[in-house]
């Protein structure tokens, strides 16, 4: 199972080397990878439907209870089949959709690693592994959404999506840690057995909130929904794969997976019903105001996700069943509609619904696919969509409370979704063919076959639901904690209230389709309310954030070295001074100090003279030379106090420092007033205080009872253990050798940094290009 997950990643790594071959005519071969995985997963269908659960575990970090634990049960099998099956079609479709694209290999690489991450996500039984794969899907989808990276809007959408789902990932990590604290394990199967204890825990509420945070961001629930319409900037195969069939359902998967662990409580069910219910209605309503086909589909996807959250929240046996069926229904028809939209976009170069009609005269198979998908999305028999809708109504009708409200919400949503499905799937293929599209050509087989196949599957499953009943649906219900033995899927449910509601839905929805025509006017109308949209509130928050950080950076890091040093010293003075006030004894034991000789007095006088000369001289070179005098005086003091190693090093360093300064200053004007009187006074005061503090500190250290243990250890062991008599050097190369190793690495980095800054300046051409992109980006921002 690990191999299956890693295949996607291996595939993308391989593409780094073999990308050239896959770019050309052989690109269709890439789709063999998901196809192989799909076949691999189908072999588990029979054993899973017999109630088996396949577990695999590989050790990873046993000391933290983190292993690569994988679990294949009904729920993960359904998702795995969707990921690989739709993946296969999308891979194949892409080879035609992006034919000859410069970066087709990269695209496949991203898709491959996304597929691997997604499989890992749905198969993980360990929460930490789950989290890792969860983040990997966010990251790989970032690359996919931003695939057209020359387009600023595309980059921005990618960043928004990454930001929102990334925050969700952090929620998941926190949730995993909290659940581990409560249950003592990261394994989800083990948590299943102690569901009671977890639900009774005082932190249950927090754990639920964290899991909700993760699920709602990933599955685009209100108010985090806005990243999904933005993500439609991605090439259509990405929208199909990530934003209808797989990634956005990861949140739903998480909720379903945790229903048997955390579900059944009031807070769990009510929150899900409210959030899901609001999201489904809100975004279904929004579809009316979109003229971009992908915009319509994005909002209807959010709405469908809302329905799934809503059904999970209902928490009944029937609701689980409805959710399981609806996942398949939605994956089939929404992927079809996206692929159809992609074809339309590819052939006509527009996705504006107001300009599209009559295309069935040119691309009949695509039209058939679109219309079948629309019918399935509308829930018109004999499609699987009808079965799904009946089950959804049934589940809401049998809920424990507030039946009326729930029914109104779900029926309204379904009516609006029917409208959205018709707009996306039927509108482009009916009516008169406009003049501007008369030259449009029929797409190739590889493009129209995948959506047609998916659409036909939607009908086959509807006519004969028993195909998927025991193979897929029942195991899903079982893994959500329901009892699957009584389930029987059928197209015809008998004439009852639910059927009447179905008829109403279809009637009103169809009427709506004929009354409301998508138009720019409607789109502009809703745009007036943008200022209260969560997206714009976030945008404003971001701008504020950037403003504050700009201010902060400009204030503290203004590029003047003297300011940096002043700030660092000031900070130290305040910090150390604060600690020292009240803790200093000012008791100097004069007897412990050694006698002062004439050599020391002379050296100190030279040193002081050097300092004053440095400060007051008018010439830079003289100041540097005087600094050298100061350094050499310190060397002498080291010599007096028998530290020859230090003296030697200080001597060489000082020589080099003077040389460096001279080199830098050589080209500067000879005479300059270095700073004005006030600045000098300020700096003088600051450095005097700093000097005083350091002196006091040194004296304080002296009066502390000395602990010689460390020194004694080195002195005693340096010859025995390290064969060296020079303790200083032994410490440097042996006892603390690792420190030295890191220090020389840092030195090397500094040298490379200096070299890079001075030598590798941007070439003029590159610089201009950089400035151009910056400029266009700013203009774009201004427009928005």
């Amino acid at each position, binding site marked *: 199972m690990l191999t299956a997950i890693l295949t996607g990643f291996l595939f993308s790594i391989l593409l780094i080397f073999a990308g050239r071959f896959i770019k050309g005519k052989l690109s269709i071969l890439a789709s063999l990878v998901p196809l192989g995985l799909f076949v691999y997963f189908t072999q588990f269908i029979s054993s899973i439907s017999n109630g088996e659960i396949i577990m695999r575990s590989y050790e990873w970090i046993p000391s933290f209870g983190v292993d690569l634990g994988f679990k294949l049960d009904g729920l993960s099998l359904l998702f795995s089949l969707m990921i690989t099956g739709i993946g296969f079609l999308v891979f194949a479709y892409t080879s035609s959709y992006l034919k000859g694209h410069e970066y087709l290999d990269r695209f496949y690489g991203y898709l491959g690693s996304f597929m691997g991450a997604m499989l890992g996500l749905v198969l993980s039984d360990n929460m930490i592994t789950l989290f890792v794969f969860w983040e990997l899907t966010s990251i790989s989808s970032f690359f996919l959404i931003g695939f057209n990276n020359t387009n600023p809007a595309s980059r921005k959408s990618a960043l928004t999506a990454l930001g929102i789902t990334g925050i969700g990932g952090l929620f998941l990590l926190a949730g995993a840690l909290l659940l581990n604290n409560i249950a003592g394990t990261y394994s989800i199967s083990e948590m299943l057995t102690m569901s009671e204890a977890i639900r009774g825990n005082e932190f249950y509420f927090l754990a639920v909130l964290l899991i909700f945070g993760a699920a709602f961001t990933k599955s685009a629930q209100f108010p985090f929904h806005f990243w999904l319409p933005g993500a439609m900037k991605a090439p259509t195969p990405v929208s199909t794969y990530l934003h209808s069939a797989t990634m956005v359902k990861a949140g739903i998967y998480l909720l379903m997976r945790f229903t048997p662990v955390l579900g059944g409580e009031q807070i769990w069910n009510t929150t899900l019903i409210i959030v899901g219910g609001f999201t489904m209605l809100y975004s279904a309503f929004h579809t009316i105001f979109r003229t971009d086909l992908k915009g319509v589909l994005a909002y209807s996807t959010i709405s469908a996700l809302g329905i799934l959250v809503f059904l999970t929240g209902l928490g009944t046996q029937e609701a689980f069943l409805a959710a399981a069926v609806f996942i398949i229904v939605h994956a089939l028809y929404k992927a079809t509609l996206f692929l159809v939209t992609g074809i339309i976009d590819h052939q006509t170069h527009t996705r504006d619904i107001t300009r599209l009609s009559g295309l069935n005269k040119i691309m009949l198979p695509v039209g058939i696919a679109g219309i079948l998908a629309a019918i399935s999305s509308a829930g018109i028999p004999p499609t699987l969509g009808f079965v799904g809708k009946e089950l959804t109504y049934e589940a809401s009708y049998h809920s424990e409370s507030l039946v009326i409200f729930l029914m109104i919400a779900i029926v309204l949503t379904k009516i609006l979704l029917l409208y959205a499905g018709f707009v996306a799937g039927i509108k482009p293929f009916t009516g008169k063919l406009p003049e501007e599209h008369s030259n449009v050509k029929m797409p190739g087989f590889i493009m129209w076959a995948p959506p047609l196949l998916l659409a036909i599957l939607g009908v086959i499953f509807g006519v004969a639901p028993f195909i998927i009943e025991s193979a897929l649906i029942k195991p899903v219900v079982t893994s959500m904690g329901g009892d699957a033995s009584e389930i029987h899927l059928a197209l015809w449910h008998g004439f009852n209230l639910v059927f009447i509601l179905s008829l109403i839905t279809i009637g009103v929805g169809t009427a709506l389709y004929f009354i409301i025509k998508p138009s720019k006017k409607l789109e502009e109308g809703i745009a007036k309310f943008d200022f209260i949209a969560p997206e714009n509130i976030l945008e404003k928050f971001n701008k504020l954030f950037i403003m504050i950080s700009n201010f902060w950076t400009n204030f503290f890091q203004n590029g003047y070295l003297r300011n940096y040093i002043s700030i660092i010293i000031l900070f130290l003075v305040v910090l150390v001074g604060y600690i020292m006030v009240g803790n200093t004894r000012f008791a100097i034991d004069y007897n412990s100090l050694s006698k002062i000789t004439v050599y020391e007095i002379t050296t100190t006088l030279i040193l002081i003279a050097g300092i004053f000369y440095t400060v007051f001289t008018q010439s830079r070179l003289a100041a540097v030379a005087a600094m050298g005098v100061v350094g050499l005086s310190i060397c002498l003091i080291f010599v007096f106090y028998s530290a020859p190693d230090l003296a030697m090093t200080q001597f060489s360093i000082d020589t080099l420092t003077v040389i*460096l300064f001279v080199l830098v200053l050589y080209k500067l004007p000879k005479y300059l007033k270095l700073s004005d009187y006030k600045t000098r006074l300020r700096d003088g005061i600051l450095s005097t205080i700093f000097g005083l503090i350091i002196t006091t500190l040194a004296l304080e250290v002296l009066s502390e009872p000395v602990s010689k243990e460390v020194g004694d250890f080195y002195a005693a062991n340096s010859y025995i253990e390290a064969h060296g008599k020079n303790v200083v050097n032994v410490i440097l190369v042996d006892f603390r050798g690792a420190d030295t*190793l890191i220090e*020389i690495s840092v030195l*090397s980095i*500094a*040298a*490379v940094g200096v070299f890079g800054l001075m*030598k590798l300046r941007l070439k003029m051409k590159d610089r201009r290009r950089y400035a151009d992109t910056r400029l266009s980006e700013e203009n774009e921002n201004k427009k928005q």
Partner: protein
Amino acid sequence: MRTTIILKTASNYLLPVLLVFSIFILLRGHYLPGGGFVGGLIASIAFILHSFANGLDKTKELLILHPGFLLPVGLAIAFLSGLAPVVLYDLPFMTGLWSHDPIAILGSVGSALFFDIGVYLVVNGVTLTIIFTISESA
């Protein structure tokens, strides 16, 4: 830059002398004051003196390779000297290894010496890279 003939002549002799001295300092480090760090600094001072007297280009010609190449070489030597005990004897990283019998002139040789040689090369490389880069740009 004008340079006196005295400095020019002297630097030709001083360069080898200083280099030998720096190696001397490097090798004696284990028993007496000295070591790779100071040794590296002295070696770089030798080259810088030479460049002052004869011009940077002459010194670069003399060095053949850019001093920046000393960085990876030195780092690799230091790191490998730490890695040797792990690979050869399955001991922890940076365990000191020592020859049993003292070698002529050098005394007893251990992995620490190679580590110090690495430090010597890195310090020399860093100093020369920085000073050469800056003096070329100034």
